[in-house]
Each structure stands twice: as structure tokens, then as C-alpha cells.
């Protein structure tokens, strides 16, 4: 039987209330904290989590953090502030550029890019991208895309040393933000929220001990389409609900689909839902306007990313039993 996008429809009010109950119980009973920290990126996920937490706990028990850096979009701070203003909770601006400079984040990243483009320097912009999943049966091998000061776009596959160093340097951003989130959590006796949606949580679109670290993850079970619907239901500002997902991490604009998922989020959601529910590729291909073979390729990619992601969800490996700790 063919399926369509309606399988992702939710009773939004009932689900919002269920999540709010879980947040109240989780923060008070399990975590024993007085409120939550939400890092606001100006994107749909963190905005939705902020709206849910403000509803669940009351705005006095939510503290927002705005943490842009020099590669963030110009509109990031305005968008994230619109969330704390809309839901009426206090927030703090922490510009993380000086910390990242102290860590030599940008310098280490640019050194790695120069392994591929030796002339890369001031005035150039960059991002890393995956091949289009549907174009070829290729591996998930990243390329770096640079824009010269004259506006010329160049692209080159990354050798392993350069790729790993770019990722390692860029991960300073998410880990620096998480360090500040725990600073504010400790000073307020609050818990830290994580804001992954289901696609991100399942497929590993987060940095271990960076944005992947959190005490509570209120929307990790929601597909991204459902997060958009929930955000609208809760009154998240229109400008955020209408914004395309971006990583806001690299100096060249970068969609999440070219960075990680290789399909836009709506068809990716439906593929993941269908795979999770044992739906054959042919039964979902029509709604996606793809061939069954292309859907099979997406299914395989989901499995491959799950395998790669396993390490990111694992607790530390112990080499002997510690029975007292569970």
C-alpha cells in the first residue's frame, strides 16, 4: 500500500502536553534541577525546545543563551533573540569568537583547507559537502568547497588528514557552546537541554560532547517535519518557521542536506519513517517522486550512518565491571 506525508501528522496539542509533562518530571524528579538552559541558534529545533520548556516549566525556569561567532549568519542573533522575547525568558549573549580564536579553531581549520587549496586565506570562504546521494552510488566522502575573493567557486575531494582536521577544528564551536551552557547551568542549578530532532539523533548529526551532550532532549523522538509543525503550533516566530535548515557553522552558506543528509529534510523524514515502519521502498517511492532503487539507496545510507553513529551514542567503554554504578 502506498504511503504519503500524512503519516507524519501529529495531534500537536496532545503531543505538546505529553512532552511538557515529561520535561516537568524529568527536570524535577530525575535531574533534580530548578530549570533548564536552552542554547538558541535561531533555528527551528532550539526554538521549539525553548517554547516547550517555557510552557512546561514557566519562563522563570528557562534561561536562553545566544552564542554566535564570526562565521554565523548576520541574522542569527536577531532570530534567537526573537525567541527569548516571544516566550519571555531571560537570556545571555556570549560571543564565542575570542574563545575560538584562543583555541586556534579558525587557524587550525584554515591550515587544513590549505592542504588542498594552498592559496586559501583572508577573504576566502569555505564549507564541506557530501556528494548527492541520488546522483551516484558513491561513498559519503566529503569535499571542500571554497569561494575565492573574486567569487570563483572551487571544489576538491578532501584527503583524510585534511578532512579530519577540518572537522576536529570546527567541532570546537559546538564544544565551546556546551562548555558555556554547563557554566550557566551550574551557576543557576539548572539542567542543560539538547535540541536534536529524530533525524539528527538517529543519524548522528551532532558533535559528541558538543551539541550531543545534554541532560534532557525533549524533541529527539520527533521527525523534523513534526518539529516545524510543533514550532508553529507553539507560536515560534514566523521568520524562524520559514527559514531553511542550515548548519550556520561554515563561512559559506551550507544547507543541512548538502552537509549531512543528502536529501532535503521532508523526503528524508518520510524515508526514515518508512524504513522504521518496515515499508518497502516501492511503497514510499511515489510520494517521494523517487524510484524504488533510489529509495533503497537512501535506506542503505540510513543504515550506514547508524553504524557510524553508534560510537557517538556509546557510554565510555569500561575494561572491568563496576557493579555499583548503573
Amino acid at each position: 500500500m502506498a504511503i504519503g506525508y500524512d503519516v507524519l501528522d501529529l495531534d500537536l496539542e496532545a503531543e505538546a502536553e505529553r512532552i511538557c509533562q515529561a520535561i516537568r518530571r524529568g527536570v524535577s524528579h530525575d535531574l533534580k534541577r530548578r530549570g533548564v538552559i536552552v542554547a538558541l541558534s535561531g533555528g527551528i529545533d532550539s526554538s521549539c525546545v525553548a517554547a516547550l520548556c517555557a510552557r512546561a516549566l514557566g519562563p522563570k525556569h528557562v534561561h536562553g543563551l545566544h552564542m554566535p561567532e564570526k562565521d554565523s549568519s548576520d541574522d542569527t542573533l536577531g532570530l534567537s533573540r526573537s525567541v527569548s522575547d516571544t516566550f519571555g525568558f531571560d537570556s545571555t549573549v556570549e560571543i564565542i569568537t575570542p574563545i575560538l580564536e584562543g583555541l586556534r579553531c579558525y587557524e587550525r581549520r584554515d591550515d587544513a583547507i590549505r592542504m588542498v587549496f594552498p592559496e586559501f586565506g583572508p577573504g576566502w570562504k569555505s564549507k564541506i559537502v557530501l556528494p548527492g546521494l541520488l546522483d551516484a552510488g558513491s561513498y559519503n566522502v566529503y569535499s571542500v568547497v571554497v569561494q575565492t575573493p573574486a567569487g570563483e567557486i572551487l571544489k576538491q575531494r578532501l584527503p583524510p588528514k585534511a578532512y579530519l582536521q577540518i572537522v576536529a577544528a570546527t567541532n570546537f564551536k559546538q564544544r565551546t557552546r556546551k562548555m558555556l551552557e554547563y557554566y550557566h547551568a551550574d551557576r543557576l542549578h539548572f539542567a542543560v537541554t539538547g535540541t536534536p530532532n529524530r533525524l539528527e539523533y538517529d543519524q548522528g548529526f551532532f558533535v559528541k560532547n558538543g551539541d550531543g551532550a545534554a541532560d534532557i532532549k525533549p524533541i529527539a523522538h520527533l521527525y523534523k517535519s513534526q518539529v516545524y509543525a510543533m514550532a508553529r503550533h507553539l507560536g515560534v516566530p514566523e521568520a524562524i518557521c520559514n527559514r531553511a535548515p542550515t548548519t550556520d557553522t561554515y563561512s559559506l552558506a551550507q544547507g543541512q542536506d548538502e552537509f549531512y543528509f543528502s536529501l532535503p529534510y521532508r523526503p528524508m523524514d518520510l524515508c526514515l519513517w518508512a524504513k522504521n515502519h518496515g515499508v518497502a521502498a516501492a511503497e514510499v517511492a511515489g510520494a517521494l517522486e523517487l524510484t524504488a532503487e533510489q529509495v533503497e539507496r537512501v535506506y542503505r545510507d540510513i543504515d550506514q550512518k547508524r553504524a557510524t553513529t553508534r560510537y557517538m551514542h556509546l557510554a565510555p567503554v569500561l575494561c572491568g565491571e563496576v557493579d555499583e554504578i548503573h
Partner: protein
Amino acid sequence: MALIPTDVERDVTAFIVENFLFGSAADAPAPATSFMETGLIDSTGILELVAWLESTYGIAVADDQLVPENLDSVANIAAFVVRTKGG
């Protein structure tokens, strides 16, 4: 001198054992074992493997050659290298 597929298989296996298995030869993959199906080598591992193939055999692997048919097993790699070198 033309490359012999079994020699390439031996060298590729040695590289895999040394770099991905910390020297545990008992866990070495059979020539036809799929890296994807067994999870032995992920996409970062493929990057490392390709860099090693390029430097060891003096070949350039194009983006459109990064496909399982060329790289998903020791036997596929050996056949690909021999074909690319014109052996």
C-alpha cells in the same frame, strides 16, 4: 612489471590489518568480504584506504570511481588497482 591481483590482495589485507585491526591478523577479512556489510571500514576508512592506494600504486582515484564495485572488498580493490594500472 604488471601487477598480480593476489599480490595486491596481500598488500591491501596487510594495510587493513595494520591500520584498522591493530595488527590482529586473525580478524583479517577474506578477499570477498564486504566492508560495508561487516562494518569493517567506514567512509573515513575509505578515505584513508584511497590515500594509501594512490601513494602506494601511483594511481589517481577519481570521484566517480569511489564506488563499492571498486572498493568494498579486498578482491574488488585488487581488481580495480590492476585495471587502473593497466596490468
